[in-house]
């Protein structure tokens, strides 16, 4: 290790000197790499926003264990199961409460534009908080009035004016079928790919809005365990106790279940994965162009080094040194720019897009891989550096 360090110290940093000597070319190269990095960051950002946004409602549910129909696919296609299973669940040791959650999509008139829009209606009994959203829990009393709803500030669409009015304390009314709804409060959750907006209401209002739904057919069962009980053990006991027409998942498993649906059953995960791969390829091509131009430009000098007795491995090390320098320097603007672009995209789409350390590390690794791959292709040109041509 010590000798390697000494080796590095006495070595002329040729790759760096070559890159630094042609500053224009270096800047173009860095811009190219930064571009590829930005593309990868955007693709990965949208991908993880998809997973995050579609599990946002799942994450805030106030439950240790979730009961759902075995036919459930995702939040928008939950199907239903019998409310009797919730009462049965209360028999199991360790279960504290088991409450019902009703979820369905509904078409309402946008209170601002009066144009039809689809929103996701979430209903539960207002005596007991069902969501870990303090804002909602403070306004549960409002929901006890019929045809009253709470609306999501993070909704996608033209709701800004309506939200501003509610914010000032003036309830806004809108219409579902022939029923008038009053938006009397707000909360913050955010839109998802599956639902542009979430609307929270009481179970009674929910059942009035969906005349064909029945109080005894629930979308989800939220089970909370007694303090000190292990949710995994209680979940196992529940699955053993309940018939197979209901599925038992712990809260973490349920989030995983939702995410898994979007990962596998929807094409969106694949699309963004492909987008990332394309960005990677674009990066490889850009870096290859830069490195191969550089190798060509220095072919004569490399041949001279060979004639002086430097081996092929030394020349390879120059190219890889350049590749690593480009990767690291290009990554700097490549990681700073997306932070701004994320903020822009988050504003435009109401999706939770933000930079994470793990994604930054992952893209850095991809960048290093990209540059190494390009370097490996570019070194094939080195073989044409024949020292015998020098005389």
């Amino acid at each position, binding site marked *: 290790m010590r000798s390697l360090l000494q*080796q590095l*110290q*006495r*070595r*002329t940093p*040729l790759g760096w*000197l*070559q890159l*630094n*000597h*042609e500053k224009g070319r270096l800047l173009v190269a860095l811009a190219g790499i930064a571009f590829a990095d930005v593309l990868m960051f955007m693709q990965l950002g949208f991908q993880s926003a998809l997973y995050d946004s579609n599990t946002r409602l799942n994450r805030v549910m106030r439950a240790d264990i979730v009961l759902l129909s075995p036919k459930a696919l995702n939040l928008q296609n939950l199907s239903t199961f019998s409310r009797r299973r919730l009462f049965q669940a209360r028999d199991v040791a360790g279960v504290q409460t088991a409450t019902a959650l009703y979820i369905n999509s509904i078409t309402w008139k946008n209170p601002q534009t009066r144009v039809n829009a689809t929103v996701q209606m979430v209903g539960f009994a207002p005596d007991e908080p069902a969501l870990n959203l303090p804002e909602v829990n403070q306004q549960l009393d409002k929901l006890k009035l019929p045809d009253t709803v709470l609306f999501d500030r993070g909704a996608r669409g033209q709701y800004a004016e309506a939200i501003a009015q509610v914010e000032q304390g003036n309830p806004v009314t809108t219409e579902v079928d022939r029923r008038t709804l009053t938006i009397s409060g707000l909360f913050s959750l955010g839109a998802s790919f599956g639902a542009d907006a979430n609307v929270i209401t009481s179970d009674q209002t929910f059942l009035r809005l969906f005349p064909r739904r029945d109080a005894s057919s629930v979308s989800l069962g939220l089970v909370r365990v007694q303090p000190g009980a292990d949710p995994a053990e209680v979940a196992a006991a529940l699955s053993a106790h309940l018939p197979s027409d209901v599925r038992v998942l712990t809260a973490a498993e349920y989030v995983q279940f939702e995410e898994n649906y979007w990962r596998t059953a929807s094409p969106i995960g694949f699309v963004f994965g492909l987008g990332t791969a394309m960005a990677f390829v674009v990066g490889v091509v850009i870096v290859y162009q830069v490195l191969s131009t550089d190798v060509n430009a*220095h072919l*004569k*000098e490399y041949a*001279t*080094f*060979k*004639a*002086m*007795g*430097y*081996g092929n491995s030394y020349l390879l090390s120059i190219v890889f040194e350049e590749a690593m320098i480009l990767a690291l320097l290009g990554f700097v603007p490549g990681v700073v720019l997306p932070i701004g672009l994320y903020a822009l995209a988050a504003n435009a789409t109401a999706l939770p897009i933000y930079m994470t350390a793990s994604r930054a590390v992952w893209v850095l690794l991809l960048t290093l891989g990209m540059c190494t791959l390009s370097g490996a292709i570019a070194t094939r040109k080195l073989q044409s550096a024949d*020292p*015998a041509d*020098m*005389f």
Partner: protein
Amino acid sequence: MAIAISVQNLNHYFGQGQLRKQVLFEINLEINTGEIVIMTGPSGSGKTTLLTLVGGLRSAQSGSLQVLGQELCGATARQLTQARQHHGYIFQAHNLHGSLTALQNVRMGLELHPERSAAEMLARSTAMLEQVGLGDRIHYYPDNLSGGQKQRVAIARALVSHPQLVLADEPTAALDSQSGRDVVNLMQSLAREQGCTILLVTHDNRILDVADRIVHMEDGVLKRNSAGVLTTP
């Protein structure tokens, strides 16, 4: 006196099959340690081919070619690379690295030898550049040096590691007569100091006087192997 280069019955061919063409015919040449030998001859006579063979830049095909005690005929690529580390090369074009300063270029001639420390390499490279009269330009890039100065840097690079053998291919071709003269004198004096052997290919009649011996190559055959210093024509 020890023999630096010993060539016996060396034949060399270019091309394959039907196109195979012999370019060197039964070359026999011995050069003693410390000798300065100039090789002359018309273009295409095979001088450069012989020089590249001696320098280990091509592998010798048949006959015997011993350089600094090592047989290069049939040597592996690795052995040739090793052998090259003990030679100093001076090319017709200076072939300096454009991204490196004069000092860094010269230092590249030392970096091959792992036993030297960074401080030692710096000191020796600086001293070498001072010896070739460029002490005030060690941090210049090649683009900012004249042709003669560049060639002097190239000589410094070739000689800084004190090679036992220096091979030069028309080192004065790109220079005016005064610079050419300076360069050759420099090579001669440095070689004398360091006791190295020089094999120099040239067309330039003005510099023949530095040679201990002049050999003449024509059509792949060594024609004249004259001993003793010739006077400048």
